[in-house]
């Protein structure tokens, strides 16, 4: 059970002067239950890549397989693939359209042709998963909610389809720190609780470093690096070369090491850094 991309090439507007090569020789496997981060700056091909995963786009060359089913081979199976691979777009609150929150979240499951009972159950479950009190929120108009709340409703709309793979494209773009932490906390709990595979797309190093097991770095439509967050962020120069930074704390550690502090090079969180720096300070005092 996994998403496999083999030799993917994707060309936009072929045969016009706007022709661009968005993805080139991508080989990738994402296993069931993984928590993967995809990073890359604007135009690196992240968004195109995730759209290939749920059949919104079909690769120009190569193939994508989701749970041993080739995407795009059978047009009628696309709905099934989109149910298996749930995709939450950037600014998903712009897709809300129903009169009430409950109706909007029900849109996905309804399209799957489930029974009313099952739909109601899933709507309740999904809204609670993103931290809402179902009875309080269900009859509210989605347009009366705050930005962060709208976004959580939109995410619930995808969760209600019970995907095996959940792809989130910049889920915290434009949110304040509190809203951001809220979303990340819920994604983390969701991953732990339900064994859903999560693919998190972002250009923010900080977010990805803390959450994911594996990072895929995209640059100019190619996979530039791949590995655990620690492996990736220990190569700060390489990341800076392709226009990405490293988490603030990692660069502080790097600078400290340059000044002769003997601390571990692969620190990603403030907590870890605190412990290591205190250790070093103690060592020096002795």
């Amino acid at each position, binding site marked *: 059970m996994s998403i496999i991309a083999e030799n993917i090439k994707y060309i936009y507007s072929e045969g016009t*002067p706007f022709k661009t090569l968005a993805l080139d020789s991508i080989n990738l496997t994402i296993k069931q239950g993984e928590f993967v981060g995809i990073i890359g700056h604007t135009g690196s091909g992240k968004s195109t890549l995730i759209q290939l995963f*749920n059949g*919104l786009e079909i690769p120009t060359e190569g193939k994508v397989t989701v749970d041993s089913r080739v995407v795009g081979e059978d047009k009628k199976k696309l709905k099934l693939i989109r149910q298996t691979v749930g995709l939450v777009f950037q600014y998903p609150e*712009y*897709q809300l*359209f129903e009169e009430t929150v409950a109706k909007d979240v029900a849109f996905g499951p309804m*399209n799957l042709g489930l029974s009313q009972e099952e739909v109601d159950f899933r709507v309740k479950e999904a809204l609670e998963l993103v931290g809402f009190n179902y009875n309080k929120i269900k009859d509210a108009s989605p*347009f009366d909610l705050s930005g962060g709340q709208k976004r959580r409703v939109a995410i619930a*709309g995808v969760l209600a*389809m019970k995907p095996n793979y959940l792809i989130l494209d910049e889920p915290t773009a434009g949110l304040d720190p509190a809203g951001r932490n809220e979303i990340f906390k819920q994604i983390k709990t969701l991953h732990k609780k339900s064994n859903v595979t999560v693919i998190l797309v972002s250009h923010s190093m900080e977010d990805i470093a803390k959450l994911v097991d594996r990072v895929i770095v995209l640059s100019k439509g190619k996979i530039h690096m791949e590995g655990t967050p620690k492996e990736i962020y220990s190569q700060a120069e390489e990341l800076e070369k392709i226009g990405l930074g490293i988490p603030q704390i990692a660069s502080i550690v790097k600078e400290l090491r340059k000044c002769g502090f003997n601390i571990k090079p692969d620190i990603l969180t403030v907590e870890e850094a605190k412990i290591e720096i205190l250790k070093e300070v103690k060592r020096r005092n002795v």
Partner: protein
Amino acid sequence: MFKNLTIGQHYPVESPVHDLDPRLKIMMTIIFIVSIFFIKNFTGFLIVIGFLTLSISLSKVPVKFVIRGLRPILLIIIITFLINLLMTPGRTIFKIGFINVTEEGLKQAGFMAVRLTLLIMGTSLLTLTTSPIILTDGIESLLSPFKRFGLPAHELAMMMTIALRFIPTLMEETEKIMKAQKSRGADFESGNIVSRAKNLVPLLVPLFISAFRRADELAMAMEARCYRGGDQRTRMRQMEIKNIDYIAAFVFLVYLTAIILFRIW
């Protein structure tokens, strides 16, 4: 789905035709349209085809793109062809049941089809070689003499510029929302007309909301920069008549003379 929309789609290359003054291009296009109606027989179309071939090859726009502009009105061309073919009285060539094809009908139908085709190809060359913004600048300038009679030329042009500016944005937005709803299992491609129309609701509601939001934001941004239309506004792109415009005007006059002479003769 939105990739094959040519009318109003600018093809950005550098060419003498692209460089022409928009006012001149607009006027030439209007006269070109009139000139096509001057022609009474097939041989006359040769002059038009010759002129069009010259313009297209100078413009460096692939012929494929110019022809693609015909697609939206293909149905109209076909209907015109059929009506003329079947409704023109004259010498019968063949007859099946109530279908009666005459020699005159065939001629007339072919004539109309060619006329329409040339008409659209000529006009889409204008939009292919002129960016929408420059085009509206040209229209504003051509309309400004009518300001005297109370025509709000600048405001009209500004409205057009904004509308044109937002076509690609809204199309992009449509595609985005469509993809988002497709990800939630929405189906825009199958079913009968009624269910298809119903299925558009999840697309149209967010689209309208975002269009209103954008309009609001744009108005605010314009006000913040003290926009007030009309008099005393200077422009970044000054339009001026260059040598190339004189040459183009001359070539066009030759074409026009040829058409008129052919008609009289």
